[in-house]
Every structure is written in C-alpha cells, then in structure tokens.
C-alpha cells in the first residue's frame, strides 16, 4: 500500500564507524543497531528505541545471520524477498539468514507490512552498510586494500588468503550504528487515520550498493521460508498461543452496529460451572478455561442479552441513493484545472459520461480475528497478534489501557491473510483480549467467530464515481473529469475499546486520489475525490466502519477510469488496447501492453464484438482489458469470459495478467502473487458484496458473503518483464485490482451492455440484460 513518507535531508549523513567493545570469551558478533541523528522526541519514548536488543542485523561467529524487521509475512512471500535483498548486499546465501519479524521487543523499526518497497529499501541499505564494515575489517585482517577483496558466500578473499564473516567477528563484539529517521508509532488525533509513525523507521544515508548488473541472489526464486512448517503442522499460529491460567473468551456483540446494552443475559452456572460473564459498558464477553464452554455459554448469554434498537444505516440496497443524498462539500483532494477541463470537454466532438459503482466488500480472511493478551497489575502487557503493524497496534493498546507504550509488547505470529485491514494497527480481537485481560488479571485468548468477523470487522466501503471525457474528431480523448465519492477508509479504531468506552484512536473523514495517471497524451484532466464519515455516524458505538483493502482507492478509481476508457474506445470504434497505446508515450507501459497482448493472443477489433447478444441460453464469449500504473509497476489485465444471458451466469474462462515491476526480485514469488491476486480480483468482480439492513451487516457467513471457489477459477496466464534500470516496483498489490475492469469490458464485448457496477451476479446480469425471472 502507498502510504506517504516524510521527506528528510540526507546530505549530512556520513558512513557509520565500527566500534569494538573488546574481546569476549566465546562467540562473537557484529551487531548493527540504530542511531537517530536528527530525531527529537521525549526521553520516555526514545528509551524504548535504544535498548541493547534493538539491532537490525547480527553477523555471528558461526556464520549465521539474524535479521530483525518489524514488518511481517502476510502471505505474499516477503520473508523470501527480505532475505534475498540483504543476502545480495552482503554476498551471502539467503538461507544463511534467519528473519525475526514483527515483535516490538526485538524488532525496532516498525512499519506496515504491506509496504515491501520501503522495507526492502531499508534492508538493502542495512546490508550495504554492514558489507562496508565487514570488508573494512577483512582488509585490516588480510593486510590488503579493500579494492583487492572479493566476497563469495560470506568468504572474503584477497592477497591469496581468505576469511569468513564469522571468523572476522569471532571472539569480538562489534557495534555498527547506522543512522535512521522516522517517528515512533503513536495515537495522534491530528492525523487522518488517528495514528502517526506507522511508516516505521527509515535508514538514512547513501552507502555504496551493489549494481543490479552484478546481482546473483535477486532475480532467483528463493522459496518462502515458512512453508515446510506450515505444511507439517509445526507453525505456531496466533490462535495456538496457550498460557498457564489462560481464559478463552467469546464476545457477545450488540444487536446492531449502534445498539447499547440494556441488560446482560443470565449465565446458568449449573450448565456452565466454570464460565463467567464480563461486562464493561457495551463490551460483553463470556470467559472460561474451557473453550467449548465459552462458546456455548456465550451463545446462551447472547440469546438473553438485551440491546437498544438502532437503525442508522440506509440498507445496502439503498447505498447509492444514500451516497447521492450526502452533502459532500469540498473535495478531500483535487488535481488539475477544472475550468480548462470543463471547457475542453464542452469543445469536444463527442462526450462520454458514466457513473460507476460498487457495494461494500470485505477483506474476509479464512481465519477470523484472534489474539491472546497477558496484562499484568504492574501495567505491562504482552499481546500475541497477527496485526500487520505491530508497532501501530502496540501504540493503540497502550493508549486504550492507559499504560506507557514501553510497557507493551506485541508479538506477531502467523495467521490468515488480512489484506490491509490491520495496516493502521487497529481493528481485531487484540483490543478485546487486552481489555479483558486487564479486567481479569489473567491471560485471555479472544477468538472472534466468523459471524463476529464479517459483522464487526471494518469493511472496504462502497463508492460511486461520476466520470466523463471528451473525444475529438479523430476519436482521441481531449480531457477527463472525475468525481469519486465514498465513506472514509481509515477507521482503525479498536472495536473493543469503542464498545468498552475506553480511549481509542479517532480518524477523520476524507479520501485521497489514488490513481497514478497513465495517459500523458490526454492533455487535460480534473480529478476530485470526496470522503464522508462512516455510514451510521450517529451510532453511539461504531457504525459501519471503513478501512483500506488491497490496492486501496486505486482499485476503485481505476475501475472507473479504465471502464470509461473502454467505453470511449468503443464510441471511437477503436480496439481498446490500441486506444490505450494512442494515449500514452510511456515506454514501460507500451512494452508490457504489447507483451501481455501477445501472450493472450489478443484479437484486435473494437468492442462490442459483432456477434454480441443479450439473449439466449447458449453462452456468448467476449474479451476485455485494462491497465494500471502503481508504485513503479505497470500492469495489464486481459479477461476472456463466457456469459449465459438466460441464466445471468458469467464465467471467466481465462485471465492473462502482465506486469513490469522494475527489477523482479523473485520470479516465483511474483508469479504466486499474480495468480492469487487474479483469484481475488475475479471473486470481487463476480461475487462479493456486503449486505446490511438498517442496523447491521447481514452477510455474516460464507454462504452469504460469497467468494470464488476453485471450480470458478479461470485459467491464469502470467507475463513478467524485468528491467535493471528502474529499481524495484510493487509486485503484488495491483494483481487483484487489474481484474474487475477487464471482466466488465469483456462482458460489454460479449453482450453490448456495459456493466457500470460490480459484482456481476446472476441477478444483476439478468436485470442488466432485461432477462425476466
């Protein structure tokens, strides 16, 4: 995900000096830790950052290497990439590296786990600084100049002699302090999402780095390290944490997203002898040392618990109307000259205008939120969590419990993929567990049910976008004008804290322009985005919370832009792929469009196809495409689909996905991300929709919140282009977003009707095609 980084001056950074603490009796290590040359903050906070263990990297005498990062593995292969990036700079094998991730007590740097690019940039520099220090040591030891040294697999050679990294540090302890800048994660009412410092620390300076032309490790398919343990049942997942005296908890949630507690149902102590009910304002839980007793007791308590009625939501069938009737005021963000754009569209030969929309969707992991917390009387708290931002969660928990942040430790463990919902350190069972543990004085494990998760976790909000363009006499786009409307996507409040009436972060309504503009040959554009508060803003508790989800903002805004481009291509009678090429001179984009089209055997012709039809019991086929530029990466998606008009069934038969994301670090992991992203993108295009009535989410099981099954998966064809001259690009996130616009375009190609809404469910398709029944 793109989260803007603060600029900082690097002009004053010099190469760090290696210091030696002296000889030690056994072992030996070179420890790379952090200094903050231009960082000002309170002493209480800074002390947390300079503990002895706050090292980024350790070279040990036995030639093993420990790398610590606050970032975590979220299933996209980051644990493979990080090892590769640092191994490349150090000239070691990636399997020599052990990665420790996401433990706030051991990994000081923080940062959101989705941000591979910033994480990789950090580790690359850490590796480069360390390499310089190591060859400096080797030059002294071997009595040759640094220039005469070569390094292969951690063995430094020069002047006819060799020494390993391990031997360089044997029986000694070296410190290498490298300069970093950044903010500590904290709850910040001034910030747009209620949090500051989520980016983590950034390594400063400009150490000499290995040129890409000499890479040996990057560009190879190093496997993701955790897989064998996951396949054999050895992984310790977040849900596996068991502590002595631990209580299992199940939450009893309010009847709606705005209900408050009237009375708690009675617990039958004969039936549930070791269970107990705990209440704090609107936070209700049933706890027991026996998990199944907690489950069943919670069900009986919930059945008799009374809540106030609340009906502050419009109902999902009225979502668009509700968004339309909101008084939006000024845009949250705008780009381009409105007057010139409007005038250019008015002068155009033809105008295309459309409104695109999508309902709320869910991150919907297969494993609902779970957490274990151990909060002690002295204010210390340890939370085992699968949050994708351990430092952010740590700050949120400290704020909620009113305990100093340095007394809180968050330990990340594996769990089901979250797809962005914990990026800001909020949401989840962590808050419930911490609050309950503080109340009980015992460790508490909170497992949300699937129903809890689909109803009470934050969602990716629905949206509407009005967009239009002008076409000149040659059928080229003269100008594009767009206005995007959506509830906020930044509500990282911890649900448990809100319900319990305890301190929590507080986001501000708003939205952002996520589009990275791909069409330099479109002379004018005006983009506006509008954000509103959550639906149900009058809720005395949480309302319908919105949060970012995979490819946030751009997933939605690109659907509108690329759908408009497809409709404009059709109005101009031009092949949609050719139409893109007319509107960009960006060589990287042009190259990946051509490569992907070749691989898909794209048939050049305007859409809709001449055989298009909107009736019949036989399937009609079509193709469609779209592009996206995101985080120094270029993406092309080409869908081939079959529509059966009579039944409204849409089957995506084949999807070709192409990317050029600069230097490809790991082709295999990238392929995994591309293929799996397509599955999620097809799922979003065909099936996904959060339904809600006037008080609550109603799509609270998989039978109602439907996601793609294996049988519905298309054949997936991937195209990768790697380049050595453009750095690294984001290699995972756009894969889902590149699907829905291509599928909508293919539907248009097949039927002649442009779907301006997703998902393409049978009911919606039949309505669109005027099929009765």
């Amino acid at each position, binding site marked *: 995900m793109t989260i803007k980084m603060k600029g900082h001056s690097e002009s004053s950074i010099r190469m760090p000096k290696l210091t030696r603490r002296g000889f030690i009796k056994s072992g030996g290590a070179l420890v790379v830790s952090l200094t903050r040359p231009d960082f000002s903050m309170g002493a209480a906070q800074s002390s947390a950052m300079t503990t002895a263990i706050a090292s980024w990297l350790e070279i040990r005498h036995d030639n093993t290497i420990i790398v610590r990062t606050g970032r975590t593995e*979220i*299933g*996209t*292969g980051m644990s493979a990439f990080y090892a590769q990036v640092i191994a490349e700079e150090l000239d070691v094998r990636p399997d020599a590296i052990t990665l420790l991730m996401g433990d706030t007590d051991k990994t000081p740097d923080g940062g959101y786990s989705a941000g591979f690019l910033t994480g990789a940039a950090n580790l690359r520099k850490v590796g480069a600084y360390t390499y310089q220090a190591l060859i400096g040591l080797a030059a002294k030891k071997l009595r040759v100049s640094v220039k005469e040294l070569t390094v292969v697999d951690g063995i430094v050679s020069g002047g006819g002699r060799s020494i390993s990294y391990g031997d360089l540090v044997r029986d000694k302890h070296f410190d290498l302090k490298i300069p970093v800048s950044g903010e500590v994660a904290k709850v910040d009412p001034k910030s747009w999402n209620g949090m500051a410092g989520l980016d983590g620390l950034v390594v400063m300076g400009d150490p000499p780095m290995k040129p890409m032309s000499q890479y040996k490790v990057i560009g190879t398919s190093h*496997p*993701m390290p*955790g*897989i*064998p343990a*996951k*396949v*054999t*049942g050895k*992984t*310790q*997942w977040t*849900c*596996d944490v*068991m502590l002595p005296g631990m209580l299992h908890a199940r939450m009893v949630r309010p009847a709606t997203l705005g209900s408050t507690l009237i009375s708690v149902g009675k617990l039958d102590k004969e039936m549930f002898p070791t269970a107990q009910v705990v209440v704090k304002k609107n936070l209700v839980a049933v706890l027991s040392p*026996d*998990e*199944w*007793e907690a*489950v069943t007791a919670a069900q009986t308590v919930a059945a008799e618990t009374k809540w106030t009625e609340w009906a502050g939501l419009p109902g999902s069938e009225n979502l668009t109307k509700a968004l339309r009737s909101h008084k939006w005021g000024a845009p949250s963000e705008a780009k381009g000259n409105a007057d010139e754009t409007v005038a250019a569209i008015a002068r155009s030969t033809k105008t295309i205008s459309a409104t695109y929309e999508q309902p709320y969707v869910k991150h*919907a*992991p*297969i*494993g*609902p939120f*779970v957490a274990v917390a151990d909060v002690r009387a002295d204010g210390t708290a340890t939370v085992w969590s699968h949050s994708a931002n351990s430092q952010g969660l740590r700050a949120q928990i400290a704020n909620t419990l009113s305990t100093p942040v340095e007394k809180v430790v968050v330990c990340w463990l*594996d*769990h*089901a*993929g979250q*797809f962005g919902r914990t990026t800001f350190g909020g949401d989840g069972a962590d808050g419930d567990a911490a609050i309950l543990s503080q109340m009980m004085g015992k460790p508490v494990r909170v*497992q949300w*049910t*699937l129903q809890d998760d689909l109803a009470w976790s934050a969602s990716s909000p629905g949206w509407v976008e009005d967009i239009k363009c002008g076409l000149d006499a040659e059928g080229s786009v003269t100008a594009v004008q767009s206005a995007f409307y959506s509830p906020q996507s930044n509500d990282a409040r911890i649900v448990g804290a809100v319900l319990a009436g305890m301190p929590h972060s507080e986001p501000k309504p708003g939205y952002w322009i996520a589009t990275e503009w791909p069409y330099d040959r479109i002379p004018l554009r005006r983009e506006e985005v509008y954000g509103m508060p959550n639906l149900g803003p009058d809720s005395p508790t949480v309302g319908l919370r919105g949060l970012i989800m995979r490819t946030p903002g751009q997933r939605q805004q690109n659907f509108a832009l690329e759908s408009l481009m497809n409709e404009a291509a059709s109005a101009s009678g031009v092949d949609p792929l050719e139409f893109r090429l007319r509107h960009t001179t960006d060589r990287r984009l042009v190259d990946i469009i051509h490569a992907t089209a070749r691989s898909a055997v794209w048939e050049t012709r305007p859409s809709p196809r001449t055989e298009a039809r909107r009736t019949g019991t036989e399937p009609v086929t079509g193709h469609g495409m779209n592009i996206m530029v995101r985080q120094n990466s270029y993406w092309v998606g080409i869908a081939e689909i079959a529509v059966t008009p009579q039944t409204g069934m849409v089957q995506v038969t084949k999807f070709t996905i192409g990317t050029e994301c600069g230097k490809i670090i790991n082709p*295999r*992991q990238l392929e*995994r991300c591309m*293929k*799996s*992203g*397509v*599955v*999620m993108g097809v*799922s979003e295009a065909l099936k996904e929709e959060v339904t809600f009535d006037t008080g609550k989410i109603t799509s609270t*099981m*998989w*039978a109602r919140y439907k*996601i*793609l*099954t*294996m*049988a*519905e*998966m298309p054949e*997936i064809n991937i195209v990768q282009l790697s380049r050595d001259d453009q750095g690294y690009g984001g290699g995972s996130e756009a894969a889902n977003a590149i699907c829905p616009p291509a599928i909508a375009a293919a539907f248009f190609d097949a039927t002649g009707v442009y779907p301006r809404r997703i998902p393409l469910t049978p009911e919606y398709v039949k309505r669109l095609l005027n099929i009765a029944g």
Partner: protein
Amino acid sequence: MASELKLSVNGETHTVSAAPETPLLYVLRNNLKLSGPRYGCGIAQCGACAVLVDGAEARSCITSAASVVGKKVTTIEGLPAVWAEVKGLPVTDNKELHPVQQAWIDEQVPQCGYCQSGMMIVAVELLASNPNPTVEHIKDAYSNKPPSPHLCRCGTYAAIIGAVQRAANAMKT
C-alpha cells in the same frame, strides 16, 4: 458434563476429558495440542478444520468428539505415518513426508497457509480413490462436495491443482 473419551488420533490412542458434544476441533487443538486443523467458520462452510475420519474428510468443527470414538482420526501431523503405512515402512522412525505434503512444499502452495491443512486433507482423500485426477476432478473435489467448497482467500487454487497432480505422480513411483 465432561466424560472420558477414548480417541484414536494419528495412530495413537488418547483418553481425553471433554463433554461428548464438544466438536472434535477443540479436542484436537486444546486437549491434544494438534494445531493442523484450525477454526475458520465453525459451521462447515470453509474447510479449514478438515480432518480424515476413517479416511474420509470430515469437518471437525461440526463433528462431535463422541462420534469419532472407535474411528481413526488423521490430521496433517499424522500424514507421514499414513504414507509410511501405504509404503510398508516402519511408522515410528519414518522421516519421509506424505507426498501430498512434499508436493505442497515443492509447489510452494501456502501463502498465509491458514486453509492449507484442510486443503491437504482433501488431496489425500481424493488421491486414495482417484490416483489420476484430472483438473476437473480436482476442481470438483474442492468445490462441489458437501458440506461446502474449500475456500482459500489468498487465492492459491492454481497452486493446489499443481500440487495435487505432482503428488499423484509421486505416489505412483
């Protein structure tokens, strides 16, 4: 009220104290400390908790512990022993993974991996009855068999198909 239940899990007999209606999932995880099967939905709609009961896939979240007394329960932790038995190797010092597990490693199937224990259970069940499954057979086994499709949110379906076919080949040799 808790009873003493005698369960055969991964080739060993365990006596556990649990209410008879307790879903097998909680007994496996909390009493026997087997973390392969995981809680996904609790209502047999996702497959993350799947285990083998007498060789047939069962959703342990809705299968009572009492109902498997006298039957053989297998989780992914027990798959190497299942393979050893098939191959006629000594079960106790067998280090070889089940070909399904090895294929899951070789094809790098797991992303987050949360659903993959259940996915491997389906593969073992399928390959026991169909040693040469086509892509359509595999899709059918994961999507159309009651009580529900096996769901993967990361989207590893293509990798699963590749791994099932790889395992099928490995099991022939």
